[in-house]
């Protein structure tokens, strides 16, 4: 589609500013994290790693980080397992009300988190689950499972169901088919889904605020408290580390997927062991 040169330049200029807008907070935080000063000034006059040291030296910060890591790993496990099973059931299975069920299972993506938060808050308060990490294992899993279902569902829909049919008609049982035909097909999607489930839980803040407590404070919750009441410059370092985590997970997912897909292409047809 051709436009006159000047309108093209205008378009590019506008879009570059939008892109700058998108990157601005991230870039500013990363730069500000190396600021030596106590005050949140920008641009920094002197540079140091003191805020990074602060993070690694204070239990106030690294303990919530470790808790967040633990919760994210558990959430990743639960939601990937539940979500994958559900996706297989929704895409390959047939039952009445399948459409509604699928809509229902994806709906947590669209229901405002705050409503889920108060619902769970009232529920868990009754059984004394507030302030315990278990509450967050469950709540985060609820938030991450729909994402897993969408990702794995898409992979299943775009793959060839007749491969599984062929395996079944050749005598493979239901479980063997799942293990040696279905699972390898969706392995790249599984990697993506697991990675995103991890990130969703690790960064999650609203449920952490409502369901957490002194013994169950995640990193986002602690950061939130600092941002609201007294801004601690360590926040810039922590935020930069969080950005790093997100980028790492994204890159890792992309690389793993590439490796899996390459291995699949090179593998010759071999019968499964046993």
């Amino acid at each position, binding site marked *: 589609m051709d436009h006159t040169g000047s309108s093209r330049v205008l378009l590019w200029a506008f879009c570059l500013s939008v892109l700058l807008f998108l990157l601005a907070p*991230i870039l500013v935080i990363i730069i500000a994290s190396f600021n030596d000063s106590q005050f949140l000034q920008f641009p920094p006059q002197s540079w140091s790693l003191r805020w990074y040291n602060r993070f690694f030296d204070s239990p106030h910060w690294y303990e919530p980080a470790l808790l967040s890591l633990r919760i994210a790993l558990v959430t990743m496990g639960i939601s990937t397992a539940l979500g994958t099973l559900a996706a297989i059931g929704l895409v390959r299975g047939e039952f009445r009300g399948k459409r509604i069920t699928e809509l229902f299972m994806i709906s947590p993506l669209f229901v405002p988190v705050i409503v*889920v938060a108060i619902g769970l808050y009232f529920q868990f308060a009754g059984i004394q689950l507030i302030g315990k990490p278990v509450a967050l294992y469950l709540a985060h899993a609820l938030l991450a499972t729909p994402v897993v279902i969408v990702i794995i569902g898409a992979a299943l829909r775009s793959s060839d169901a007749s491969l599984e049919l062929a395996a079944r008609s050749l005598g493979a049982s239901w479980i063997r088919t799942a293990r040696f035909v279905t699972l390898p097909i969706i392995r790249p999607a599984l990697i993506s889904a697991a990675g995103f489930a991890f990130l969703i839980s690790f960064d999650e803040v609203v449920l952490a605020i409502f369901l957490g407590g002194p013994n169950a404070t995640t990193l986002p919750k602690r950061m939130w408290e600092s941002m609201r009441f007294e801004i601690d410059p360590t926040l810039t370092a922590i935020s930069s580390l969080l950005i790093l985590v997100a980028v790492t997970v994204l890159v890792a997912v992309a690389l793993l997927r590439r490796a899996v897909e390459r291995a699949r292409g090179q593998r010759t047809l071999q019968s499964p062991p046993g």
Partner: protein
Amino acid sequence: MDGKGVAGSPAVGAVNRGSSRTYWSSREALLVLPALGFYFLLYLYPLSRLLVWSLFDPELTAKNYQQLITDAVYFKALRNTLEISVLVTIGCLTLGYPLAYLAVTVRPRIRVVLLTIVLVPFWTSVLVRSFGWLVILGTNGLVNRTLIAIGVISSPLKLLYNLVGVEIGMIHVLLPFMIFPLYSVMVRIDTDLVRVARSLGASPWRAMLHVFMPLSLPGVAAGAAMVFLMAVGFYVTPALLGGPQQLTLATLIDMVVNDLLHWGFGATLGVLLVTVVGTIFLVFSTILGLDRLVATRTR
């Protein structure tokens, strides 16, 4: 139901309609049960409880809902929420449409770079991004210091804890949700149609306005619906970057439940919020088809 499966025999209850997908049926369907049970316990049940609490006090009463309409504070929160969300949607559309269009019309190499730049903030936590704006928009932040340094203003602008801060923060967070649906629709538009219009004598702008834009409308609708839906329910950004005048339904719920301890009324607000969001979602998913909305998220 024989676990070993004899070759060629249909699973129990299978409907033989000739497509491979319905060959096996109820067995795969069972796989949905664990997740479904999980959802019932942790999602459906707590939410229905909210509905029950909003209606019973302890007898059946409309008291909570009456209070919703009559009390000025709560009504203001609803108005604020809608105002903010509409502004955010317009902002995202204005910023996102040209960018999506550009992404469609450039070489694949550059396209990947553009879309990656959109993806990185998308996967960065809302908290981190909102905090970034806290640093940029503060009285001693980047914007104010730059403007003062070059002499445009003499005292810092108040860009935080007001509508400006909230809008900037929310547009930033929701922009990728506008760009991806737009892009996925635009990429499927047949550019030959635009070329035909040009060859028939239309100027580039006319071709754009009368051929390309109407064809991109489904993307606009999907993106706008998604952004609006999410904006209405937002908590983090308005709470962090807004002032007392930017009370939204979400921040109000937080206040009512945690500070005022009015659990019943908090439940009512929650029900209201879900109803608003759910209605918009249902309307759009029937018009556009759920697959469109969902498919665009799996990018």
